[in-house]
């Protein structure tokens, strides 16, 4: 196998930019009291920890830990706790993605808090751009990001990993500008499971073959990997060797999100065509959620022009907080279509587009109940909840008085807020919840 030259003078590079501790960083934009102290953000229904500040990680708090287990740290270690504020996170995410799109020759939004972008130029120019990106996002939005750059997506992820774990690098790592010996040493120290796309199971099987570190994975014969694993892992090995072979990531389904994006065979340039695209991807994402038994709290739409486009570049992206966690294809489709319809500029050739669902939970929670009992929007919801089951679940969780049948059974409307007890205001999306500043 002949690898491409690792360092080319003028070339295009791949950058992976992500926001550090995204949810916590969003909370810190307005609330200066959350700086320099442990902060955790809780899942839907305040069930367990979904995001941690560095200080909280240092306290040994794990992702997924139930809230009641860390509660005592609020007093003993000044731990701050916030409920998930998806309105705020969605708004900040959209800002970050839009700003990133201005720097890249192409952009692929990969999740609510990370995006691949293309950067052209010499390595020194690319490093300057990476530093500018970081400064611009801190200045304009107020969240910290790490930028990892290399020749391939897999290496850009690795590069980002290095930037994240070495504070002295100030959040920017250009892998090709590092001492090759140092890169090799890090690769031999970091487990293969830290490589993008290598899961726990694959890791175990690799260990069985004597492959434990990234360096070992990189040195393994790609053909052998293909035979024993898959073409997917073969590509990963080739990318570790500097060969670009992972195209646009179009589907992703894991703990954090469900994603459906595609490169179009012919460019999409009208609202009608884009409506269709969004409609199809939203339905696919919804059906994936259903097959996994999960519900989404946040919907992201994204689209982009070609890196070779001669016309204007455009990378529209929007995040919409869903009023209640849902997987209803009709609701999700309507929202995705309307949001992108608003954002796109007709006449521009879009070559990619997609839908990402995040803020996932296994349970529709209290929200689904609302329509089950009151029938307020049941016409829009194609899926029905077994009311008696839900009433029982809620009563068990929140006490018998929390819920009853019919609107008269509701103690009071704000009962829903029980599950977001520690939520910060929706500073950027609700006129009634604006941040108040003293004059």
């Amino acid at each position, binding site marked *: 196998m002949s690898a491409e030259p690792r360092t080319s003078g003028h070339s295009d590079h791949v950058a992976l930019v992500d926001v550090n501790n995204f949810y916590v960083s969003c909370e810190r934009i307005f609330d200066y009291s959350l700086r320099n102290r442990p902060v955790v953000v809780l899942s839907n229904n305040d069930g367990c920890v979904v995001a941690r500040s560095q200080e909280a990680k240092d306290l040994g708090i794990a992702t997924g830990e139930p809230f009641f287990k860390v509660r005592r740290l609020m007093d003993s270690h000044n731990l701050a706790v916030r409920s998930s504020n998806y309105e705020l996170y969605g708004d900040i995410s959209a800002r970050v993605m839009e700003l990133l799109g201005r720097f890249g020759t192409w952009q692929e939004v990969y999740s609510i808090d990370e995006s691949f972008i293309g950067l052209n130029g010499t390595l020194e120019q690319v490093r300057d751009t990476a530093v500018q990106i970081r400064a611009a996002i801190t200045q304009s939005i107020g969240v910290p990001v790490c930028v990892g750059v290399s020749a391939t997506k897999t290496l850009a992820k690795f590069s980002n990993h290095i930037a994240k774990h070495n504070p002295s690098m100030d959040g920017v790592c250009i892998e090709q500008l590092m001492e090759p010996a140092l890169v090799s040493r890090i690769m031999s120290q970091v487990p293969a499971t830290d490589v993008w796309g290598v899961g726990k199971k694959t890791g175990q099987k690799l260990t069985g073959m004597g492959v434990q570190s990234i360096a070992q994975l990189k040195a393994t014969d790609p053909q052998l990997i293909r035979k024993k694993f898959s073409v997917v892992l073969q590509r990963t090995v080739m990318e570790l060797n500097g060969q670009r072979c992972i195209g646009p990531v179009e589907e992703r389904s894991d703990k954090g999100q469900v994603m459906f994006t595609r490169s179009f065979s012919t460019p999409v340039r009208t609202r009608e065509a884009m409506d269709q695209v969004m409609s199809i991807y939203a339905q696919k994402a919804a059906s994936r959620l259903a097959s996994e038994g999960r519900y989404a709290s946040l919907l992201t739409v994204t689209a982009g022009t070609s890196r070779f486009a001669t016309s204007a570049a455009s990378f529209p992206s929007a995040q919409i907080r869903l009023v209640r966690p849902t997987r209803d294809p009709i609701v999700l489709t309507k929202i995705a279509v309307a949001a992108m319809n608003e954002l796109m500029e007709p006449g521009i050739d879009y070559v990619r587009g997609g839908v990402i669902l995040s803020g996932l939970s296994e349970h529709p929670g209290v929200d689904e109940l609302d329509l089950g009992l009151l029938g307020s929007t049941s016409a829009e919801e194609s899926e029905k909840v077994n009311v008696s089951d839900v009433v029982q679940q809620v009563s068990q969780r929140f006490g018998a008085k929390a819920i009853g049948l019919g609107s008269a059974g509701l103690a009071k409307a704000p009962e829903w807020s029980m599950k977001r007890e520690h939520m910060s205001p929706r500073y950027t999306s609700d006129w009634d919840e604006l941040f108040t*500043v003293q004059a």
Partner: protein
Amino acid sequence: MPPGAAQGPVQAVSAMGFPSPARDYFDGGLDLNRLLVHDRVATFIMRVSGHSMHSAGIYDGDEIIVDRSLPVKHGTMIVVSLNGQMLVRRWQTEGSQVGLLSDESPLPVLLTEGDEVEVFGVITRCLHYVR
């Protein structure tokens, strides 16, 4: 969700289903976002509480538009976090000295080394409700 998707500015189709003659001339009207928001990525809106910025035309209950991307210079109106409190103030510099000015005193409150100061952003507009 971006506003306007459902409502639209004007439906240029009459109830009879005939296109309005004004349709070809309608260009979307005056969009306040274009006037008030320089860069939506960096723009935040906040509500003011208090009476110490009347001289700058900022009153209790007003909404202010804050742009984080703009540079802070002598005389710039800013939202600033001072020792944990978010304030509307005018940024004053004189030599190496930095101060925050409000109507509370004729002279700026000079910042000292012990102060924790962080500028949130520059105030570009104030939305004042005229009663």
